[in-house]
């Protein structure tokens, strides 16, 4: 039996980010209860634990399904990139479908679930399983009458699993008053995880919470999680401590003329820059200059575009002489476009985090961050931005955010509010009017840690990008 001591043995979950929240994984050799309402991802969660256990940690597994048939299960999980049939043929996975058909079963007199134990034992031994999934054992309750027998047998089953030394996931349907419909949490008391699927303002968010983890510390928050073509990932949105390093290296904004307005002749590496302005003030163009400067330094750029498709962005930027194509071809620039309303803020953050982990950019551009506000309220937006900036800073990534403001000096937008205090550099763009002409101007509102030009700088947009009017008035 595993004892509680300093070296509490744990089993990696195989779910991105969950090991961090659980400080190493599930309790080794003990049952874990995953509960949640229908469609919250329990089966997938359990399957990923098994599949990754086999592929990443060389721990064979047994999937005992009380709901889906083995072939349905293979089919459903195939769409998420898990090839159960292959693992089965390699003799690393056993899937046993336990079908309990109420209509063909009669009960009379004493019985026990020994046959289930024998089946499970046989399956475990046949592949040398270290991981077991029981999904959803509660369906046995709907197929049987004698609750007293079932309860004591299920209690015995969990004790047996512990004795067998396998790490087991038991899934349970969410009950109205209790975590699971039949109170499984009474029997599995070592680790309980609750999955939740919520729809707020028509946007669905999946969340995960560790309700209980005996003998171990764990994150207590609700963590959003994502189901995509690679399975489940949970991104722990962690420490908001201000303990990241601050490089003193100066990098170019991509516009030598703009660099000159800063006393350091550029901006600090790994700092965040906010570009604000009303519609049509060249925010995206300025952001593109930032992107190109990163590309010229041979540093990867990740460009999140929330308003334009990659093609449209490339075409429009090309018209002012900025060519993204070689950068994309050399894989140094990656444009990720999505609709803000596609998913909740948390999900956007998750996707961003995931892409950042994959692509390892040195520069991240979010254009515009203000459109994300359409999917959240201001406190959520702020929280998300703090997290995003935190991640960027911790990874020493240069960040550029553009934000649309609504007419002049009314900086009361939630996004601007939230970002401006967090951003290290703030550049405001404006379209002024002089005689019959519009005059574009740029103003540096703040630049943390360095001096900057105080005056309004006029510029035009040429077919070579932004050009400052050096002898312009003001």
């Amino acid at each position, binding site marked *: 039996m595993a004892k509680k001591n300093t070296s509490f043995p744990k089993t990696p979950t195989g779910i991105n980010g969950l090991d961090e929240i659980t400080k190493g994984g599930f309790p080794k050799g003990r049952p874990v209860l995953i509960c949640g309402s229908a469609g919250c991802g329990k089966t997938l969660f359990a399957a990923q634990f098994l599949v990754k256990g086999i592929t990443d940690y060389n721990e064979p597994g047994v999937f005992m399904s009380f709901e889906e048939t083995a072939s349905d299960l293979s089919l459903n999980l195939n769409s998420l990139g898990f090839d159960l049939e292959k693992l089965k043929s390699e003799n690393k996975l056993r899937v046993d479908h336990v079908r309990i058909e109420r209509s*063909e*079963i*009669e009960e*009379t007199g004493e*019985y026990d679930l020994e046959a289930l134990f024998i089946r499970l*034992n046989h399956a475990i031994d046949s592949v040398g399983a270290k991981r077991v999934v029981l999904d959803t054992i509660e369906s046995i309750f709907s197929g049987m009458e004698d609750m007293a027998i079932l309860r004591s047998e299920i209690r015995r089953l969990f004790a047996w699993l512990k004795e067998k030394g396998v790490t087991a996931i038991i899934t349970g349907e969410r009950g109205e008053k209790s975590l699971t419909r039949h109170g499984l949490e009474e029997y599995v008391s070592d680790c309980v995880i609750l999955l939740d699927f919520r729809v707020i303002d028509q946007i669905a968010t999946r969340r995960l919470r560790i309700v209980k983890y005996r003998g171990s510390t764990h994150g207590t928050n609700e963590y959003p999680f994502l189901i995509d073509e690679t399975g489940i990932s949970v991104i722990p949105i962690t420490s908001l401590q201000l303990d990241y390093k601050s490089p003193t290296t100066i990098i170019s904004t991509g516009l030598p003329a703009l660099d000159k307005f800063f006393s350091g002749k550029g901006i600090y590496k790994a700092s965040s820059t906010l570009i604000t302005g009303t519609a049509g003030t060249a925010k995206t163009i300025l952001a593109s200059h930032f992107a190109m400067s990163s590309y010229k330094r041979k540093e990867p750029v990740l460009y999140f575009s929330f308003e334009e498709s990659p093609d449209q962005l490339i075409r429009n930027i090309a018209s002012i002489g900025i060519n993204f194509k070689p950068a994309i071809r050399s894989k140094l620039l990656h444009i990720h476009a999505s609709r803000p309303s596609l998913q909740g803020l948390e999900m956007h953050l998750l996707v961003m985090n995931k892409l950042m982990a994959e692509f390892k950019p040195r520069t991240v551009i979010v254009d515009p961050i203000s459109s994300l506000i359409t999917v959240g309220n201001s406190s959520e937006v702020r929280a998300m931005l703090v997290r995003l900036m935190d991640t960027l800073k911790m990874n020493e990534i240069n960040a550029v955010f553009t934000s649309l403001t609504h007419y002049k000096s009314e900086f009361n937008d939630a996004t601007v509010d939230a970002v401006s205090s967090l951003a290290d550099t703030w550049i405001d763009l404006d379209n002024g009017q002089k005689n019959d002409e519009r005059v574009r101007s740029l103003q540096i509102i703040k630049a943390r840690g360095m001096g900057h030009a105080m005056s309004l700088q006029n510029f035009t947009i040429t077919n070579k990008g932004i050009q400052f009017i050096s002898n312009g008035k003001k």
Partner: protein
Amino acid sequence: MAKQKKWELRLYIAGQTPKSTLALKNITRYCEEHLEGEYTIEVIDLLKNPQLAEGDQIFAIPTLVRKLPVPIRKIIGDLSNEEKVLVGLNIRTLKTQN
């Protein structure tokens, strides 16, 4: 029907437990009483043949399976309630029909 036994029953057990022994004793008695000469009972010990549990979807012990006549019926428990077993296997109805 001729030589073919009309009733094909299977009793799944896991070792010689009191429940299993009782179940076998009970079903043999009911069959002798109501289906004399028309039945077979095959006893399968899952401790010896664990791989057989999956095929008939056995999860409880003891389980009596009526393989024939179709459809398959299952009775779980020590079969101590004769009435319930006969109804469950649909034996009485058959008798009265004859």
